[in-house]
């Protein structure tokens, strides 16, 4: 059964002239990235508990959640400034408080927990987290450090494996991908926390991987077709790897989709960001990374088997 493949994305003689849209691709990308930067500064990312510090209590009340009653009960115990939000079902309530002094934060979370449980009998506390200001600053620093170091290591790796034109266009493309992801986070209001840092790193890893495959083919074709104009050569390389590019992005997309749909509050933000990142990372390989390589490499990329560091066999 199913001995032979039933489907495929593009026929083997496909020749789409992707490079014709190179200016359009770069302009659209630049506009989106600039818009994302604007969004990053205003209104900015919603920081999650990990990075902002403070208190989050999630509770499930027996009936529909009565915010006013909880607010009044909390105020009676000296806890004001709490914000309330419903999530999921109507009887789920999420209570947030900003970080105060180190001891206060830890003491208030118990107070909130008890007050909610007492004022609405039958309430279950699903989750109660309190992160002190010093810890959140530290988590933020470590998160950014992880992001910066992995980016640096990915770049170092490409630099080591390819000529600088490849590495530089990959860097610029990754930065554009990153800014768009940030814009996506601002627009959707997903909280930026450690799990999101993990998502961004995974997207960057995936996006790099995608570029490496296209670049590998460009490098191979540079050796094979010594006289072909670079624009045609890049077009050819993209077309040759198109089935693979679409295939892998589909499997990663299919793997992330159930997480987005059923992964629960913790993972759905992560998974939606992943899905967005897969689309951005795949399209940027074709519409950004390739044109950039064309602009930087025109007349400069060396041809011939002996050239540069291009000695490894490639797919």
């Amino acid at each position, binding site marked *: 059964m199913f001995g032979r*493949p039933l489907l495929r994305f593009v026929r083997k003689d496909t020749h789409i002239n992707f490079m014709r849209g190179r200016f359009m691709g770069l302009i659209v990308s630049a506009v989106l990235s600039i818009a994302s930067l604007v969004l990053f500064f205003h209104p900015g990312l919603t920081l999650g508990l990990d990075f902002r510090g403070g208190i989050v209590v999630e509770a499930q009340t027996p009936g529909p959640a009565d915010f006013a009653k909880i607010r009044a009960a909390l105020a009676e115990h000296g806890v004001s400034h709490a914000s309330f939000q419903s999530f999921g079902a109507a009887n789920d309530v999420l209570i947030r408080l900003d970080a105060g002094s180190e001891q206060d934060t830890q003491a208030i979370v118990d107070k909130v927990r008890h007050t909610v449980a007492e004022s609405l009998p039958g309430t279950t506390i699903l989750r109660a987290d309190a*992160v*002190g200001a010093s810890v959140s600053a530290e988590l933020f620093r470590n998160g950014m450090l992880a992001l910066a170091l992995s980016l640096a*290591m990915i770049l170092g790796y*490409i630099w080591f494996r390819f000529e600088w034109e490849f590495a530089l266009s990959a860097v610029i493309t990754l930065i554009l991908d990153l800014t768009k992801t940030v814009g996506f986070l601002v627009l959707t209001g997903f909280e930026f926390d450690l*799990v999101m840092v993990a998502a961004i790193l995974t997207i960057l890893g995936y996006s790099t991987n995608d570029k490496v495959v296209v670049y590998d083919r460009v490098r191979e074709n540079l050796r094979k077709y010594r006289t072909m104009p670079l624009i045609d050569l890049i077009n050819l390389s993209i077309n040759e790897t198109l089935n*693979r590019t679409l295939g892998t992005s589909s499997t990663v997309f299919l793997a992330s989709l159930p997480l987005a749909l059923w992964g629960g509050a913790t993972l759905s933000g992560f998974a939606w960001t992943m899905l967005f990142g897969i689309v951005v990372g795949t399209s940027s390989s074709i519409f950004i990374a390739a044109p950039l390589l064309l602009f930087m490499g025109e007349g400069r990329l060396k041809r011939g088997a002996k050239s540069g560091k291009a000695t490894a066999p490639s797919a």
Partner: protein
Amino acid sequence: MYYSRLKLASVLGICLLGLLLCLPNGMRKPLPSIPWRQIHLGLDLRGGSYLLMQVDLQSLTHDRLQTLSENTRDALLNAHLGYQNIAVDATKGTISFMPRSAAETEADIAALNALPRAVPNEFSVSKREDGSIALVLAPESIRTRAREAVTQSIEIVRRRIDGTGAVDPEITRQGDDRIVVELPGISDPERIKALLGTTAKMSFHLVDANPLHATYPPQGVSLLPMADPAEGGPLPVFDHVDVDGSDLTNAGAVIDQQSGKWAVSFSFDSTGTHAFAAVSQANVGKRFAIVLDNKIIEAPVIMSPITGGNGQITGGFDAQKATDLALMLRAGALPAPLSVIEQRSIGPSLGADSIRAGMISLGVGFIMVVAFMVLFYGRFGWYADFALLANLVLMVAILSLFEATLTLPGMAGMLLTLGMAVDANILINERIREEIARGRTPLAAMQTGFEKATSTIIDSNATALLAHVMLFVFGTGPVRGFALTITIGIVTTLFTTLLLSRMLMARWYARTRPTSLPV
């Protein structure tokens, strides 16, 4: 393209071993015949509490400076040197005083430098601009002290938590001055927090009977408040410790025979018994204060010498307080207070929901990827799917072998690994297709496909590996679980795609010698 029987047998052997290692996760009771190592569920999946606690450096510094300042006074007194305005500053870690006259400065510094140091270069002594002399603790020595305090505290924390009957608590050190406490199944950590937030240093002191000293305590006497303000105002208590709480052998919560109230009974070891007997013999009729963490629990009058080495504290406790105090006295005092700086607690229902969500996602994701590979790559897709299953089995096996902790992001990491793993098969299959289209024979096409795809596969996995190792090093909590499963997943992916699925394809070719490939 040729694989020896030995190579084939060892690859399949590793897969079977992996399957065997997975088995314990599905069973309840250990079987003696197979290695018994299971994956632990993270707190986000089974419910429970995570507490990050920090040793109070300020209090450690203060304690040390207090001892040093007493030593300083003694040393100056013995050397017949005078001093004025001796002051202890715990935030800066200094003791400072004015010498009686500038001429004595050299002698003062020499006397201070002769003080015993707990560690080499623990402190330095110098003359300041205003003519005062300062003893400054080295920051490194405070860190050393914090490290030692954490080592001692971990043992005491463990004893205190074990005393509450918590199941499988995990207590680990983090950095120089932090302790992580993980409590599976306990979603309200308030009692544990209270237990760990108290140092429970108990000591017995004589009360100064001079009424004047209640307002102006002289050197060597301190005004200490009552633990329960209803019991009265502060009492002047001699600083000298007559009996130390660390000399206790046992403590328990009891109901006092006479009053019918909750009390804590305790018994001393031989050192404590002797000290207690000696003090109570010499001071019949005087008040004797029982001090816990610088607060007086009670200060009864000594009616008769107590030589049995047993005693009882009645401090207006309820059942819970008496039980907890007895527990803390048994477990020993913490060298410094521990304060909670991060806590996360997850109720059992949320954990169960997360497991269900993770399992459904994993199942659906797996089936979709499997179906995709079959629809797009036919027979070679089935081989890729077989390798994918082996990949999942090996990931679970390695996690079990390390007895790793599986978190919800960890499950996401597994799923993403599965999505990324078939990339290698896609690369190989697409390459074979191209080679066939160029008119190569099936054998040549497969050979070239494998060869050319290998370096791309290694390149793409290397970049992902670098990114996730960084995340593992700098991440905390559940995110580390994500990085760990992806890192393990990359290793298993290389094994299953470069060895297993290739071998399956090669064996099929050797068996059937097809004239065309199903691509």
